[in-house]
């Protein structure tokens, strides 16, 4: 039996005696884990988009003179409809200005309202596919209705697109994590080269294989843990920097990708992946022969 006190003491002694190598390894591990983590952050926000963005099922464009309330009440009679929102010309303009501040200023000079009033229709989840199209088709013949279009197709295409991007992202993320694990392993292997001689001496002194290896396993696991934590800190710093930048100069697309940080599960997973990679790296580099 090898005593835990011995293992911890030795691991600490190894880390301390090669402080620069230890820090270097932690830095390398942090960089290798930073890339997949950044990727995870992006794809997480992308995922949020697909669930957050509630495209209406149908959009009905009105004649500016039409009785919007009457048409809205008529639409509300349909039991499949969950919500009706009347967007006046002014509201549409305000919304546009919010999304595109630079363009909005230019539109301010126009006398005529650039956007016609519309009614957005959202369906109950129980309505099933095709309901939005049916509502739009019915409304098309009503007086005061200029255009009635189903957005279902667009909405579906959008969420399909998100799904494809996420699947590709998951695969790419897997590859990135694998690459990170391998580069952690080689960082550990590199650091171990410093200790070849003393490993040989320990064996000659009569240390069992566990006594020889366990301190190095622990040391590498610690490096992985620290590297993962450092990657997390770097990622959070990047995230905050991005938020600050976007607050100063909002961007319609980038702002959507940069909404929230990783959740606590992903946050705890990162140092754990680092630790596992460190342990794995030290296990494959420390064999009886080396």
């Amino acid at each position: 039996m090898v005593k835990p006190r011995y293992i911890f003491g030795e691991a600490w002694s190894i880390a301390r005696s090669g402080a620069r190598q230890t820090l270097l390894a932690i830095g390398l591990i942090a960089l290798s884990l930073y890339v997949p983590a950044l990727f995870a952050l992006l794809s997480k926000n992308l995922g949020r988009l697909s669930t957050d963005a509630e495209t209406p099922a149908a959009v009905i464009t009105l004649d500016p003179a039409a009785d919007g309330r009457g048409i809205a009440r008529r639409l509300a009679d349909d039991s499949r409809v969950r919500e009706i929102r009347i967007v006046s010309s002014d509201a549409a303009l305000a919304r546009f200005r919010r999304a595109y501040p630079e363009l909005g200023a230019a539109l301010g000079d126009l006398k005529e309202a650039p956007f016609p009033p519309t009614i957005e229709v959202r369906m109950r989840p129980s309505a099933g596919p095709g309901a939005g199209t049916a509502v739009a088709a019915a409304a098309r013949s009503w007086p005061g209705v200029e255009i009635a279009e189903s957005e279902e197709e667009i909405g579906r295409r959008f969420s399909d697109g998100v799904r494809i991007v996420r699947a590709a992202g998951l695969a790419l993320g897997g590859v990135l994590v694998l690459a990170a694990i391998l580069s952690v392993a080689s960082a550990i292997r590199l650091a171990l080269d410093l200790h070849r001689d003393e490993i040989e001496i320990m064996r000659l002194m009569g240390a069992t294989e566990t006594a020889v290896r366990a301190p190095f396993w622990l040391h590498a696991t610690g490096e992985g843990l620290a590297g993962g934590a450092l990657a997390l800190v770097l990622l959070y710093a990047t995230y905050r920097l991005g938020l600050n930048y976007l607050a100063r100069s909002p961007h319609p697309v980038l702002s959507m990708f940069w909404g929230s940080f990783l959740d606590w599960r992903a946050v705890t997973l990162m140092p754990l992946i680092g630790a596992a990679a460190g342990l794995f790296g030290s296990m494959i580099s420390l064999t009886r022969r080396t």
Partner: protein
Amino acid sequence: MIQLFRVSKEYGRFRHALADVTCTIERGEFVFLTGPSGAGKSTFLKLLFRDEPPTSGQILVNGRNIGVLPPSQIPYFRRSVGVVFQDFKLIRRKSVFENIAFVQNVLGLSRAEQKRRAYQVLKRVGLHHQMNAYPDELSGGEQQRVAIARAIVNEPTLLLADEPTGNLDPVLSEEIMRLFLEINIRGTTVLVATHDFDLIRRMGKRVLSLDRGRLRDAPLRRDASPTAVREAPFLPLG
């Protein structure tokens, strides 16, 4: 204690470091191993603590055939043998104390006990004031004495020393030999590889002589003149 029967060691196909060596060393004996450089002295010692397996033949140490020791048993066997290496083999990141206490540390001995024992052996080699120094801060002779202290700290049943006085002045060499004799008197079998014929002659112990990997029957002991023995600062005690 130690029996070699037709032991050969080849490094690669054509390097015959030892050829057909047969000999016996009794329990509690003090034996010198000598021979010119490259004769196979270090190899002989390496076989005895299973640093290397023999290419052929049998080696019995304390009744165990160590040529066929399973790998998991090797560390435990090595702990019963104290070795002073020709190149010291100190761990550079560890202090003198930590080097000496290494095996005890693995075994989980209390730090106080480790300190006590390390201090004792360091005192015997005259280095107790260097407990906390690091190998790189010591002279060659001092490192050699640390290696000697480490070899004897666990009171091994067999002590193997490869040129243990190679870096020491004559006075220190004699001190170290006296130390080895003391350990020998307490029952440890001692085997010392050395070039130093002067030392061998003064000690008047049994000598195994190697030449190009073969054991020669050159009982140097008979050649040792009585005066040489009398001249020695300490008379052989064994």
